[in-house]
Each structure stands twice: as structure tokens, then as C-alpha cells.
């Protein structure tokens, strides 16, 4: 279980330090640790694979599209947009209705990216007959699954930071207004949470790759879960809500309780957690994620929240996502360590 702990560290935004230790290991000693040998092979496998190139093209194209429409909106209604603070964050959230904004695209494509990076992690090694060969080398068995996860995570982190910084750069050029430090940190936290979200789906697909022998089965299962959560889950909850809605004479408090109950059910969906976190971070004017009674709202000033408060508000969501990610990794780790590896 030592490992689960260290993966917790990996999630909470420790990507840079780990990468630096990698470099320093390479510099100091000539012999690279087998784990990093495996990680660098996995990274080069990922980066040169066709599916990764296709995914990148898809993501970059959609992001360019949404950035374009966001900038168009800026030009049209700069007067109204400019009047409020957090001008820069609008780059990520603004849309004219033809194309969804940046954050919607990312929350839609991130699971797909995670699934495509992990669905054949273990089973393809098994099917190629390389797993038993690698396992007969003097390395610990968990290196294999850890290296796969680490490599995919590093690729995703690199991709998302590049993408985020590119959007900031484009925004700078187009708008000519630099982001405030508050905005910059909000964007950075948003990127980190997106990486955690991809890691969640990555671990789900690694889990399927440990369980299913056929990569096609594992990919389809991953996509099925993704579709379930992105399309059907909310429909089911809405049906449920219709059936359970309080009727007749009800107090305001009852309605609020009901609303919050339904929202909590929605939050079993990882994409709901992710979008809660996004909205709070990128729209500082969001002051609550649930329903409030009139008495609670009374006297509140409609000012944007400071970064610390926004972070505090999404903390449960972020913790939930990280916990889910670790849980999935722990399950696949356990299953993989117990599997007997024979040749094909």
C-alpha cells in the first residue's frame, strides 16, 4: 500500500518535481534506474502512437475553435465584458453559442484522452508475449503498471500545460491585457484539476486493461462508462428527481434540501465533480454550488470570491476526484499483482 501513498503525491500536482528528479538521476549516475528506463520507453511509445496523434489533433482543433469564438465574443461585446474583473478567465468560458467554450470541450474530451492512453496498457503486453519476458528481468512487478501510469500522466501533464499556456499566449496577443496573478493561479489550478480528471479516466482504463484480455473489450468498456456518465447518468437522476420532487405545500427549506440531495446524487458522477470545480475556479462570481434559501442569500454582496475561498469551495470535489483516482489505481494494482503471468 506504500505505492498508493506515493501515487497520492503524484496526483496532487507533483508532476514537475518528479520529472526533475528523473533528469537529475540521469545526470548524476550514468546508469538509469530501470523504472525510468521503462517510463521513457512508455512515453516514446505513447507519443509516437497514431491514436495519440489523432487525440492531439482533435483536442488542439477544438480548442482553437473555441478560442476563436471566445475572442470573437470579446470583440463584439467588449464593453460589457470589460466592465467586470477577471477579464482573462473569460477566454476559457465565453462562447457565442455556435461552439462550446474551452472548458466544456476539455471536460468532454479529457475522459476520451484518458481512456485512449490506458485501455491497452497491460493486456497488449500480455497478448504480445512481452509481459513474461519483461517480468523475468530483475525488476519489481509493480514497475510495469507504475511506469505505464507515470508515463501517461507525464504526457498528459505536458499536453495540458502546453495547451493552457498556448491559450494564455493567444489571449495575450489578441487582447493585449495580461492576466492578473489571481487569474493565472486560477488557470494553473484548473489545469492541475484537469490532469487529475484525465488521470481518473486513465486509471479506469488501466483497470479494464488488467481485467480484460482483449484491448477492444477494454476500450469499449471504458467508452461505455464514459457515455453512461456523460449522457445517461444525468437523465436517470432527472427522472428520479421528477418522481421524488416534493408536491403541494412545501417550505422553502424542503425545496432547498431536495435540490441539494439531487445535486449530491449528481456528484457521484466524476464529470459533475469536474465541472463543479471548473466553474468555481474559472468563474469567481460563482459563490455556491448548491441551492440557497433566500435568507442565506440576503445581504450577500455579488462580488467575486477570492482565490482561496474558491479553492475552499471546490476542495470536496477535488478530494473526491483524487480519491476516486487513487481507488481505481489501487484496485488495478492489486489485481495486477495477484495475476499469474504465463506466456501467451
Amino acid at each position, binding site marked *: 500500500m506504500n505505492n498508493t501513498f506515493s501515487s497520492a503525491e503524484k496526483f496532487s500536482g507533483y508532476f514537475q518535481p518528479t520529472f526533475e528528479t528523473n533528469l537529475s538521476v540521469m545526470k548524476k549516475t*550514468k*546508469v*538509469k*534506474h*530501470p523504472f525510468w*528506463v*521503462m517510463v521513457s*520507453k512508455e512515453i516514446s511509445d505513447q507519443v509516437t502512437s497514431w491514436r495519440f496523434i489523432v487525440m492531439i489533433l482533435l483536442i488542439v482543433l477544438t480548442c482553437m475553435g473555441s478560442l476563436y469564438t471566445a475572442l470573437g465574443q470579446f470583440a463584439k461585446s467588449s464593453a460589457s465584458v470589460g466592465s467586470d474583473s477577471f477579464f482573462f478567465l473569460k477566454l476559457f468560458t465565453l462562447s457565442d453559442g455556435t461552439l462550446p467554450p474551452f472548458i466544456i470541450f476539455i471536460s468532454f474530451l479529457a475522459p476520451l484522452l484518458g481512456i485512449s492512453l490506458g485501455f491497452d496498457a497491460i493486456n497488449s503486453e500480455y497478448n*504480445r*508475449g*512481452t*509481459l*513474461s*519476458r*519483461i*517480468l*523475468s*528481468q*530483475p*525488476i*519489481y512487478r509493480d514497475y510495469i503498471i507504475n511506469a505505464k501510469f507515470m508515463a501517461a500522466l507525464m504526457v498528459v501533464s505536458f499536453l495540458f500545460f502546453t495547451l493552457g499556456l498556448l491559450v494564455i499566449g493567444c489571449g495575450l496577443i489578441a487582447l493585449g491585457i495580461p492576466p492578473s496573478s489571481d487569474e493565472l493561479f486560477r488557470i494553473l489550478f484548473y489545469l492541475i484539476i484537469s490532469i487529475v480528471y484525465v488521470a481518473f479516466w486513465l486509471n479506469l482504463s488501466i483497470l479494464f486493461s488488467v481485467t480484460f484480455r482483449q484491448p477492444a473489450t477494454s476500450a469499449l468498456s471504458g467508452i461505455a462508462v464514459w457515455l453512461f456518465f456523460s449522457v445517461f447518468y444525468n437523465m436517470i437522476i432527472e427522472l428520479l428527481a421528477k418522481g421524488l420532487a416534493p408536491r403541494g405545500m412545501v417550505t422553502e427549506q424542503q425545496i432547498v434540501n431536495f435540490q441539494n440531495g439531487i445535486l449530491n446524487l449528481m456528484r457521484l458522477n466524476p464529470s459533475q465533480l469536474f465541472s463543479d470545480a471548473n466553474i468555481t475556479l474559472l468563474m469567481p462570481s460563482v459563490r455556491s454550488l448548491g441551492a440557497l434559501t433566500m435568507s442565506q442569500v440576503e445581504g450577500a454582496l455579488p462580488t467575486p470570491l477570492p482565490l482561496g475561498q474558491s479553492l475552499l469551495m471546490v476542495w470536496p470535489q477535488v478530494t473526491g476526484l483524487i480519491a476516486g483516482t487513487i481507488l481505481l489505481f489501487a484496485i488495478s494494482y492489486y489485481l495486477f499483482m495477484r495475476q*499469474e*503471468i*504465463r*506466456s*501467451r
Partner: protein
Amino acid sequence: MSEIMVELVNLTKKYKSFTAVDQINLSVKKGEIFGFLGPNGAGKSTTILMMLGLTEPTEGKVEVCGINPTRYPIEVKRKVGYLPEDVGFYDNRTGLYNLVYTAMLNRIPEEEARKKALELFQLVGLEGVENKKAGQYSRGMRQRLGLADVLIKNPEMIILDEPTSGIDPQGVKSFLDLILRLRKEQGLTILFSSHNLHQVEQVCDAVGIFSKGKLIAAGDIPTLSKQVFNDETHSLEDVYNQFFEGGNQDE
């Protein structure tokens, strides 16, 4: 020469109700080519997996190079090369890359690994295809690449699990010659598992005959012959047939 490389005592492996390996006692001396002979599913591969610490024995003791592989698999795997049955390579990478990768997993620096790999390509007779993708190799070439892959970590002992299955007769002959040469030149201990009687007889100094999870006989061919027929002139084939006559009648 009498140093013991492998020692198995009452080794047993059970999968739920099925006993794959049943009370095996065996020892392999240093520098010996030892054959595991027996039909498919007789427990040869499972025994090998336990010797590498890839699966845990239900009962009994294993010792390889004086180390318990169940508790210290890494140390054993550092000294023992294992060529699995139907070995796989990263098909989209060159043969050379596959070898260098294995070497680097054994903590050999990249430069040295590359040099060593090129030497091994010569040794196993694969010179000229180093930079071809492993996916384009023929079956026989893959087995040779597998042998090179096993040798790159400078092992004290190598375990070959059905290394000749699926190769044409000419390929088998040169593969076996290669094994004999390795033992002669490098003094390697070789464990050779096969269901092919003639191949085992050609190369092995001593043989263990497996059947239904049990080791029914072990020793060099004259000893086995004496054990069964009371004289040393019979071939391995005669011995083997004698053992499996009962088995054949069952079916």
C-alpha cells in the same frame, strides 16, 4: 563442477483442486544441460515459473543459485535468464532496441548494452537484421533473438521453455548447436524444457521426465536406462516409451 544450481524439494503447486506440480525433488548441477521432458501440461512450465519466483509454490522448497526465488525474485532474475515459450518482442521496435531495452532493465549502461547487443547478434547468427523491426522477424529469428535477449544480462543459468516449438528442422538443428556451443564456451548451466524426445536426447546431459505434475524419473540417460531395463544401453526413447505405456493404455 559439482556445485548445485537448482534444488527443488517436495515442490508442489495446487490451483484450487487441481495439482499442477506434485512433490517434485530435483537438483541440477552447474554447467549441466538439464532437460525437462514430458507431454504438454505435465507441469514443466509451472515448475519453471516457481523457479523464477513468478508464481508461489503451495508447498516445498525452491533454491536457485542458492537463493530462494519466492522471497528474493529479483536476485534470482539477475542471475537467471528465462526464455518463455512463444516469446514476444515489441514488434514496432528494432531487434536491437529490444535487446538494449532488456539490458538497461538489468542496469547495464546504454553504450555498453549496445555494444554487447551487437556482439550477441553475431553470436546467434542474426547479423544484418539488427535494425529491422522485430515484427518482421521469422519465427526462427525470433527464437534466436530470444536467446540473445536471455544472454545479454550475463546470466549464470538460462532456462529455455519449449524454445524449438514451431521452428523448421534446419532451424532446430542450428538452435541446438548454438546451445551446445554456449555451454562449451561460457560454461552456462542450461535448463531445457521440451516435449520432443530427440531434441532432449541430442543436447541434454541429464533428463527429468514429467507426467501429470509428477517427476517420474531423473538422471542421465544411462542411469535412467539402468533404472528401467537394468542395463545402460537403452536409448531415452525406450525409457520414455516404457514410462508412458501405462499412460497410453489409459487413453
